[in-house]
């Protein structure tokens, strides 16, 4: 395997100084080294979006990102969405719109939504559908998720 590499990352505003094997994925680092199990492993090949996190303001599928690639980066996971006890408006919108069934896709959906609305606070229906393409959901049929995003747009105004 070879020796470990040192990386310094900020996750949900906390700084970490870690030693990782070169083949450690960001997903495994978050879930197993940092105990942040909110980010899910769905396909392990970058297709389903359940592992979505925000790295330096961009959404990535963390299952195919190596931890060593994100040295120096600022990362947001689902656990970092709320401040204290209050839900982030996007989280509240998902609850209110009935957009959560089994919940496995939900963290990924919420983070993609955050990245979308940070860049485009007033997206069209097509923008929303296009942006969420990388996040698959087997339960809801997507309509309520799109409702939740539209709901969040209003809450954030």
């Amino acid at each position, binding site marked *: 395997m070879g020796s470990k590499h040192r990386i310094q990352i900020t996750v949900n505003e906390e700084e970490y100084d870690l030693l990782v094997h070169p083949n450690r994925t960001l997903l495994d680092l978050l879930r197993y080294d940092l105990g*942040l*199990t909110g*980010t899910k492993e769905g396909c392990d090949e970058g297709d389903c979006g359940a592992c979505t996190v925000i790295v330096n303001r961009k959404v990535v599928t963390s299952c195919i990102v190596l931890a060593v690639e994100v040295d120096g980066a600022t990362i947001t996971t689902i656990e970092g969405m709320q401040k204290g006890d209050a*839900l982030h408006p996007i989280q509240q919108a998902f*609850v209110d719109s009935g957009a959560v069934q089994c919940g496995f896709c*939900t*963290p990924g959906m919420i983070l993609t939504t955050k990245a979308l609305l940070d860049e485009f606070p007033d997206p069209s229906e097509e923008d929303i559908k296009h942006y969420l393409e990388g996040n698959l959901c087997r339960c809801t049929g997507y309509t309520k998720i799109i409702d939740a995003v539209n709901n969040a747009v209003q809450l954030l105004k």
Partner: protein
Amino acid sequence: MDNYSIVGKRIPHRDAMEKVKGSAVFTSDIKLSGMLHGKILRSPVPHAKIRNIDISKAEKLKGVKAVFTAKDVPLIKFSISPTWADKLILANKKVRYIGDEIAAVVAVDEERPGVAGTGGVIGHGPEIGVRGEAGVAARQVTL
């Protein structure tokens, strides 16, 4: 509708809150100290007779706690209904689809079952009259 407290009212999903926070615990989120990890060896071919399964090397691998095959489990067929019961827990004499479960490995971490220990399945096919990979010779499948 006014008399009802739930029917006709907007009631949030019971666990929507934990799910949007990421704090809902799914099975794969559970971490227990000293826990072991299991993986399934699956058939890479759609149809074959199992002539032999040799788990001796896999069992000896450091960190591997157990290797199970059909001889370790009840050979009782099951399905979602007894009427259609046609499935075994682990394949006994035949594999019938790509993905059919052949063996189960329990080890101290996730990497160990994936490492090439040789749980070997020697199989060949096809069965007469069944579409299969004609001419496939005996092949070895590693755990």
